């Protein structure tokens, strides 16, 4: 009895430490008083003024379009890469999987600086395009990571059976291979989307003047002195990422139930 109570208390402590900061943030975003020191009653005023702030709305739009385009492109490239890797011999497959895994373990700051240097040496103009390119780059490994296990499970003779029945390679891919690996592709897409949404460091190094995503916008705003609108914005980002994470975890589970 005491043991279970102690266990529950321990778990409670873990979650308290993990989520207390976020809870504080969420509570403050509804605080009518401008200072953090006292509770001035419930309000959604910060949310309203947030949506009236053009600079922030612009950053939000950038964030969303970059995340969407980058994750879609990365999903296509990553899935194609998986098809290539799965058809390699064992040794070169291991090498290529290693190469695609390294960028995920690499420190963001290293990725960010190296991308910046690359864009500089190529003479690219820093702005929306460079952010998009760098986001596509760091999203691809996550797609491969998520599609590869499904690809390995796929029974090659199913694809051959489709060819055998008269289907062309492209038709066979969309009709037979894709439905089978779809859960992996979807969770890869969502993971890439979350990563892109979440990124600050790499964006910071590859963005040009005047172009901002939410994370870089918040960073500049905070330097000027923190405003309650930022609490509201951070709360919204947290909720969005939370929903995406739930979706990622749900996608493979759904497939299992059907099978």
């Amino acid at each position, binding site marked *: 009895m005491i043991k279970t109570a102690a266990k529950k208390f321990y778990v409670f402590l873990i979650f308290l430490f993990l989520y207390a900061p976020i809870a504080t943030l969420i509570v403050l975003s509804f605080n009518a008083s401008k200072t953090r020191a006292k509770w001035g009653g419930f309000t959604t005023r910060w949310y309203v003024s947030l949506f009236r702030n053009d600079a922030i709305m612009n950053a939000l739009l950038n964030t969303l379009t970059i995340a969407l385009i980058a994750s879609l492109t990365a999903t296509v490239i990553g899935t194609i890469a998986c098809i290539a890797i799965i058809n390699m011999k064992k040794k070169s497959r291991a090498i290529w999987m290693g190469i695609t895994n390294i960028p995920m373990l690499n420190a963001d700051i290293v990725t960010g600086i190296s991308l910046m240097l690359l864009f500089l040496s190529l003479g690219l103009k820093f702005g929306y395009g460079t952010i998009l390119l760098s986001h596509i780059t760091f999203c691809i490994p996550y797609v491969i990571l998520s599609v590869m296990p499904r690809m390995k499970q796929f*029974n090659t003779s199913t694809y051959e*059976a489709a060819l055998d029945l*008269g289907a062309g390679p492209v038709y066979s891919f969309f009709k037979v291979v894709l439905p089978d690996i779809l859960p992996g592709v979807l969770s890869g897409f969502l993971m890439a989307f979350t990563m892109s949404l979440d990124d600050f460091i790499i964006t910071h190094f590859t963005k040009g003047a005047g172009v901002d995503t939410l994370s870089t916008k918040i960073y500049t705003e905070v330097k000027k002195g923190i405003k309650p609108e930022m609490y509201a914005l951070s709360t919204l980002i947290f909720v969005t990422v939370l929903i995406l994470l739930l979706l990622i975890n749900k996608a493979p589970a759904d497939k299992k139930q059907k099978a």
Partner: protein
Amino acid sequence: MNKKLIDLQHITKSFDGQMILDDLNLYIRENEFLTLLGPSGCGKTTTLRILGGFETPDQGHVIFDDQDITKLPPNKRQLNTVFQKYALFTHMTIAENIAFGLKIKNKSKSYINDKIAYALKLVNLEGYGSRMPDSLSGGQQQRIAIARAIVNEPKVLLLDEPLGALDLKLRQDMQYELIRLKNELGITFIYVTHDQEEALTMSDTIVVMNQGYIQQIGSPEKIYNEPENAFVADFIGDSNIIGGTMIEDKLVEILSARFPCVDTGFGTNRPVDVVIRPEDVILSSPANGRLTGTVTHLIFKGVHYEMEVTTPDGYEWLVHSTGMYPVGTQVGIDVDPFNIQIMHKPASEDEEAVKIDE
């Protein structure tokens, strides 16, 4: 005789420098049930994949109906394959699976529905159209895979160990089913298996392969009764393979006893291999046999007794007989001349390596 439908000419194929098929030549007649039989790694599946278009030979040509189809992709070939692991499309219903090939050919809806009904009836699975493949047993899935292939009316059906994953009873039922299907459809079946019993039961022609070479081509009776070399004799059922000497036409010396036989043309006093099937060894009292030996092992097998008879020179004869001789009994051994099969001894080490599975 029906005309040649498929002609494989000088097919050579290697993977990673390892030779899988070496100058293989084989033709298949229309409406034939041909089985490629051999141990794993003998090249039988590679041969089938070359026919299906999934592999391209390094050298040689595949002639189908007088046309060279060596480089034709699988989707352009008038052959359909039944795969070892069924390879059904798991996210489609049974009916959608069967309709897959017909939809690509833009057949009308009513034609497709008729075909689905016909194919399900043919494989005894009427009313299964709306089920999902996962809800079917292995045997049922395999029959759907066959139905999916035959609705396209291929000239040839390729079957890659289709019964390998099924249990014994189901496998036997499916063997009869396949023979019935072949007779009803009147198309050519090319069947790959390592199971010699399966091959003997179903085939018109058996091609025994080992290490990329064809060892013997012939009817099941011929392959079983007159194996051309020790590998074939050993692979197709149990047998006694004994080194002997061909004294003259129709007379062979085995273990220093002379046996009349029916083979001619091996020359005089030539070393040969002699194959005698265990069920062809006649045991009697020592006085009536050409050789004498002692029964050293006895096992009851149901249909017959399996005995081991050791002759004084140490050779252990495998004998299947309905008569029982207890262990330790002295017996005489005789063989009917028709049941003695003489084979050339491999001339060189090289040839031996090819013929006997290592």
